[in-house]
């Protein structure tokens, strides 16, 4: 059941669901849920959302209304019951040491949970404008926007020049594929090796059965976003092929 709903940015919503059992509290950051957005059979499949944060009795997501399913969700009021499946997939490998988080747009939706779990030293957030920029509390954040409405004006890659890559022992990266690829391409090889990316793909089931959610694998073949991921070592992905999909 939806217990809270808020439009945190224009067209971007935070929804908190009540969950009966406390199994979400165990969910490591980066895992996701599958939401049944309508009582009708249509749209047929559920919609996947990264778990943004959890408590004993609740789970939160942050999403942007981009289409049909998220449009229905954006209209849903507190009190509405929706079927929710999860936590699904595997999240970030929670290595000790200092973390650098790099998020593009709504890619940062999963960072609150991650930032609360690991030792997050620096958070770089980019977006087209302030309107699309999530804020994540209690973390040193540097922002950049394409229109300069928050932080520097430019692309997230412009922030990378000054990063001391050696200072971090883990990097989390999440955002649109071209943005992630640009970031990966600019990284020193050593940084790539410690980078985990949170991937997105159209999903059928969300639990490993349908082979619908393929992400091109480095060296050939495909990974299953829903069960091999959605968080993957950056090196396990074939970035060229992946970029070609969209």
């Amino acid at each position, binding site marked *: 059941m939806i217990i809270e709903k808020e439009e945190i940015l224009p067209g971007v919503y935070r929804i908190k669901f009540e969950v009966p059992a406390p199994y979400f509290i165990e969910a490591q950051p980066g895992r996701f849920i599958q939401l049944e957005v309508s009582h009708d059979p249509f749209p047929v*499949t559920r919609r996947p959302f990264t778990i943004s944060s959890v408590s004993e009795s609740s789970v939160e997501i942050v999403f942007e209304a981009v289409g049909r399913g998220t449009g229905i969700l954006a209209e849903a009021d507190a009190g509405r019951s929706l079927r929710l499946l999860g936590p699904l997939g595997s999240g970030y490998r929670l290595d000790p040491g200092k973390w650098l988080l790099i998020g593009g747009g709504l890619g940062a939706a999963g960072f609150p949970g991650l930032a609360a779990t690991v030792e997050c030293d620096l958070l770089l957030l980019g977006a087209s404008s302030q309107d699309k920029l999530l804020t994540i509390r209690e973390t040193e954040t540097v922002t950049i926007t394409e229109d300069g409405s928050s932080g520097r004006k430019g692309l997230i890659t412009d922030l990378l020049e000054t990063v001391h890559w050696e200072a971090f022992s883990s990097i989390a990266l999440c955002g649109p594929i071209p943005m992630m690829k640009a970031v990966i391409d600019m990284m020193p090889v050593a940084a790539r090796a410690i980078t985990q990316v949170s991937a997105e793909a*159209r999903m059928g089931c969300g639990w490993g*059965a*349908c*082979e619908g959610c*393929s992400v091109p694998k480095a060296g050939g073949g495909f990974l299953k976003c829903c069960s091999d991921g959605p968080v993957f070592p950056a090196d396990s992905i074939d970035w060229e092929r992946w970029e070609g999909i969209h």
Partner: protein
Amino acid sequence: MDKPYKWTFWKREFTSPILLASGTAGFGLELMEQGFLTGAAAVISKATTLAPREGNPPPRIVETRFGLLNSIGLANPGVDEVLDTLLPQAACLPCPLIINVAGETVEDFPAVIERLEESPVPFGYEVNVSCPNVAAGGIAFGASPEIVERISTLVKSISSRPFSVKLTPNEGSIVESAKAAEEGGADAVTVCNTFLGMKVDWRTGKAPLKRNVGGYSSPALLPLTVARVFKTSEATSIPVLASGGVNRAEDILELLAAGAAMVQVGTWLLRRPDAARELRESMISLLEGSP
């Protein structure tokens, strides 16, 4: 369907008529872990081919207004890996496992099944003749009654396990192909599979699926399945396994009334992994509640 409701299929008795359709339940392992196989008579595996197959380029799943297009491309690790890894794990399933078999040539089908005979796990096979016949320029095997009969005869000759031939609704005559499968010794026919479908973005003129067309499934296709189940069950005396459009208990009862021996649930399982339990329960309530 006497109380305590039983369905007999391939000489076994089941307390549910529900089969989990190929490609939507994996090998049942993920569902078993969650306890979601309750209510399922059997699991039908994803397609298994001789060689491993990567499958089609993504996106592989595209929604339309009232249904789903898929272009999985029979992605699977190949029969060796299925034998080495998946079947041993599937030995623990709480229900039988039927292996769905696909091929690119007529000979592929018996070749894959010959290998699968090495394992004690399969309860039977589902021979997917909806896939394109490479030698015949990509027309589905199922479009030709002669080829359906030949494949059935070949499979029969190398395995004593029961098998169903999964027919295509897209080409040829499903009734003629069903008769040919029976003639060749098939122990059932599966009626049917996804329908050829496509989506085009009118603004860009592009299809989201890289291969343009894919397999379409939707609860709105149920009447198409009902008609084909009715016609094939009239024309043959082997069991008909219905597949297509089920998302309610009423749909299952309707397909049984139309002549199906068992009923598969596919796409709906993607949305409700515990569909078998849910559907079976509400089916039983309907049966109890009916005069």
